[in-house]
Structures are given as structure tokens and as C-alpha cells.
């Protein structure tokens, strides 16, 4: 596949993250090539969110480094990492409940260099998710689960990212809604935004990504091109069968 010819967008090397004494991530290394969709598959508690939060600077690494476009970002504050071009749709959407849909989206264009371009970005988001335009003056509290997820994605796109991290954007949504969101995710990727997809669903992850990593108990248990990986082997790695059987 294209991984070989393209530039590395994000490189995580030997990353370890602790919560107190508890090692949530141990020695994780991974590479996200520019333009790709990379999925990180793992069961509940595998350390996926911790990994993404650490890339975003919300958690601090105990060990290891994170490099984005040849710039060391581990240790930088979250707002600087966002300004550099990495953004995240966090697990559980985290829309601003006290604000309208439009104000939520405008928060995405908060950084001064984004403000001049906000109308164009808004149009892009509204054409991806027309329902957000319909509801733009409603408080985000009144949105459905799927609409919230769209709003979180739309808000992330407003920040004009090069790399978009998606933490369980299908969590708790109906299958039709999930399908719709994944179609949009492909469109976002075709616009040139590199995507990291965190998922618990093996089939969906492999189907929608170029490359996959399987996480188990804070470590990478398996990796490979998504089209080459065998679903049963992935499932075994996911539950830790091949190592601890």
C-alpha cells in the first residue's frame, strides 16, 4: 500500500503512561502515515483513550516521545498541539452543553489564525453534516447521540487539522447512524485529513482503515495492513488469546 512512499505524519516511540502507580500504557510505538486512516482496536480498558489523550497533551508521558511532522509535541500543552494541527473528537463527544450548535462550531475556529477562514470552514462542516445547519441555533444539550458525535467531529474539523483523532465515535449509536458517520469520515479523509480511528469493533475497524494496531493491556499486541489482517487472529489478539492461552 501507499505507506511506503508517503511521509510519516505522527510517530509515537516507546511511550509509557501512568496513572499514579498504574501503568496504563507500556512501551507503545506506532507510525501514522500522512493521508491514511489508521485504526487502533482494543477492548474496554486497553489504553486506547489514554494513548490519544497523551498525543493531545491531556495526559503526560512517563517515558517516550511523540513527534508530529518532525516536531516533538510530547510535553507541549494541549492548546499548542491543536495549533500545530492535531485535533481530537474525544470519547463521549464533549460538546459544550451550554452553547448553541453554531457556537460550538465557532469554538473550533477559536485560534486567531483560523478566524478569517471560519465561514468557509463552517460551510464545509454544514455540507458534511446538514443536520448541524438545521439545528445551528439550538442548544447542543437537545441533540441526539448521533448529532452530538457529528457536532464533535464538525467542531474538530473547524480547527483545520492535518491529523484527526477519533475516540470511539460509534459508541452507543444505532447501526444506521454509525454507517452514515463512517461514510462522512471517508469524505473527511479524502479532503486530505489523516485519521486515527479508535474502536472496539474489530470488523468495522478493519473495514474502514488502511492500517491497524491492536492494543491489549497497554501494549501493542498485533499490527498490520487492515486488508491483510485475519479477523480471527485480530480477535484473538484483542482478547489476549494467542499470548496467554
Amino acid at each position, binding site marked *: 500500500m501507499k505507506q511506503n512512499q508517503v511521509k510519516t505524519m505522527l510517530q509515537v516511540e516507546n511511550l509509557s503512561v501512568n496513572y499514579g502507580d498504574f501503568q496504563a500504557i507500556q512501551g507503545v510505538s506506532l507510525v501514522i502515515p500522512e493521508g491514511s486512516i489508521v485504526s487502533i482496536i482494543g477492548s474496554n480498558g486497553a489504553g486506547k483513550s489514554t494513548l490519544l489523550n497523551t498525543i*493531545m*497533551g*491531556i495526559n503526560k508521558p512517563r517515558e517516550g516521545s511523540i513527534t508530529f511532522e518532525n516536531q516533538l509535541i510530547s510535553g507541549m*500543552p*494541549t*492548546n499548542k498541539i*491543536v*495549533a500545530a494541527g492535531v*485535533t*481530537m473528537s*474525544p470519547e463521549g463527544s*464533549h*460538546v*459544550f*452543553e*451550554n*452553547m448553541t450548535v453554531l*457556537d460550538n462550531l*465557532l*469554538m*473550533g475556529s*477559536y*485560534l486567531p489564525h*483560523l*478566524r478569517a477562514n471560519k465561514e468557509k470552514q463552517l460551510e464545509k462542516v454544514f455540507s458534511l453534516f446538514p443536520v448541524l445547519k438545521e439545528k445551528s441555533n439550538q442548544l447542543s*444539550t437537545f441533540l441526539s447521540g448521533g448529532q452530538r458525535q457529528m457536532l464533535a467531529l464538525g*467542531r*474538530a474539523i473547524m*480547527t483545520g487539522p492535518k491529523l484527526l483523532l477519533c475516540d470511539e465515535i460509534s459508541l452507543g449509536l444505532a447501526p444506521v447512524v454509525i454507517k452514515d458517520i463512517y461514510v462522512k469520515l471517508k469524505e473527511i479523509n479524502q479532503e486530505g485529513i489523516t485519521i486515527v480511528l479508535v474502536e472496539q469493533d474489530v470488523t468495522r475497524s478493519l473495514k474502514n482503515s488502511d492500517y491497524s494496531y491492536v492494543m491489549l493491556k497497554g501494549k501493542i499486541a498485533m499490527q498490520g495492513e487492515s486488508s491483510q489482517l485475519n479477523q480471527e487472529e485480530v480477535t484473538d489478539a484483542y482478547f489476549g488469546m494467542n499470548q496467554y492461552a
Partner: protein
Amino acid sequence: MLQSLVNGILLGGLYAIIGIGMSLVFGIMRLTNLAHGDLMILATYTTLTIVTSVTGNLWIAVAATILVMVALGFLIQNFLVNRVLDKGSEPALLVTFGVSIFISNFLLKVFGADNKIIQNSLASKNVISTEHLSISAMYLFSFLVGIAVILSLHYIMQKTYFGRSIRATSCDRMAAELNGVNTKRTFSYAMMVAMVTAAIAGVLVGSTFVFYPSSGTQYLIIAFGVVVIGGMGSLVGTLVGGIVLGVAQLMGGHIFGSAYQMLSGYIVLLLILAIRPNGLLSVGARK
């Protein structure tokens, strides 16, 4: 009766601007600023000092006071409150308590315990003066300034990137950071805005009533009452809270005698709390 009602409403505008800074700080960082009243009175003394010993022009003195208070707000937030805010709200609460004690003792040391007032041309004037009703120019002016400050803040909060970043930070700090907001800096900005309102409130109060180094406590209690009645963190609620408290005090004083003025204000406060524990116009339910 009518006189008490009108004065209560006008006083409410002043109360609202006393409470607004406290409401703002609570709304964004869940911090009860126990130094709010003392910071107000510090502004009052600052204006008095500038107007008596630097320039005779009250407007210049007020502008200078606002600048001093904004700088002080930045220092307090940046070097004291932000340092402890990550450890929970109790340490930060204690910091504001310390600031409060420091300011009132500092004022006592420098200015002595005598009462003071900021002389001004409005204090002795009435805009309306009939047999049944007289309206003090100073009360009316305070009321109008209170409304103007609240409307300006409302506009800033709803329509500017700065205001949205404050609302976003108060709702979900992590998500605000994910949109590029430096939330610690936003806290400092919010404190600075609160100090602008405290400076204005301090000048209005000092031009209307006599004050002492210890007056801060009295205004902290009023700010607290306003914010609790109106609902923490709500701008419109602050105005409503101010007016409810002002009217309750003056009507109570009119009916039961002026000795019961303060008491009747706080009885109404307790009644409202019993019926609506989050205040009349609280910002929606928190997670």
C-alpha cells in the same frame, strides 16, 4: 411605599454590579472568591487616594483604579489561584480568604479606621423630587451603570471569541483546550474582567455610602446574596438577584422599620433558596 420600591430597584442595579464579578469567577472556575468584597473596597480607597492626592478629576481616578485592579487581578490569579486550582477548590478558597484578610488589614494600617466617602457632585442631587417620590441622582446613576455593565458583559459573552472561550472553559475545560484555548490564561482573563466590575462597584459604593477598611465583608455578603438568589454564573440572574435583594431590603425596612432592613433581605434569600435551591435563573444542570 412607592419610594421604597423605587429605591429598592435602583439599589438592585448597584447590588448586581457588586455581585457580577463574583458570579463570573464562580461560573468559570467554580471558585467562591472570598476576597471579592475587600478587592472592591481596595478599589474604593485607590480611587479616593488618587482623587485626593494625584488628580482632582474623578474620571481619571476611576480609569486609573480600573487599570490597577486589572493588574492586581492578573497577579492574584496567575501567581496565587492558578497555582493551587488543580488541587481542587478548597485550597483556592483558602487563598482568597488569605487575600481578603491581607487587604482589610492593609487598608486599616494605611488609612486608619475612620469612615470615608468619595466626594462627588451627584451625591446630593435628586433627579426627581416631589412630595411622594424623590430619586437620588447617585442611585439612578449606579442603576444605569449596573445595567450597562451587565448588557456589555452579556454581549461579550454571547458574541465574541473571548466570551465563547470563557463559556466553553466553564462548561468543559478539556474540550476547551482541544479547541486551542489556554484555559489557565482564560481564568486569568476572567479574573481581570471580574476586577473591572469590582473597581466600578467599589467606586459607586464609595460615592454612595461611607466606607471603612472592614466594609469589604458587608459587600461580600451582598454579593453572595445576589449571586445565590440569581443563580451562580448567570448574568441576567445577577441583575434579577440584585433587584430582588434591594427591593426586599428596602420594602422590609419600610414595613418593619429600618432595623429589619438587612434581616428582611436575607429572609427573602432563604425563602428563595428553599423554593429554588439553585437560584432563580441558574445556569442549566451540571454534570
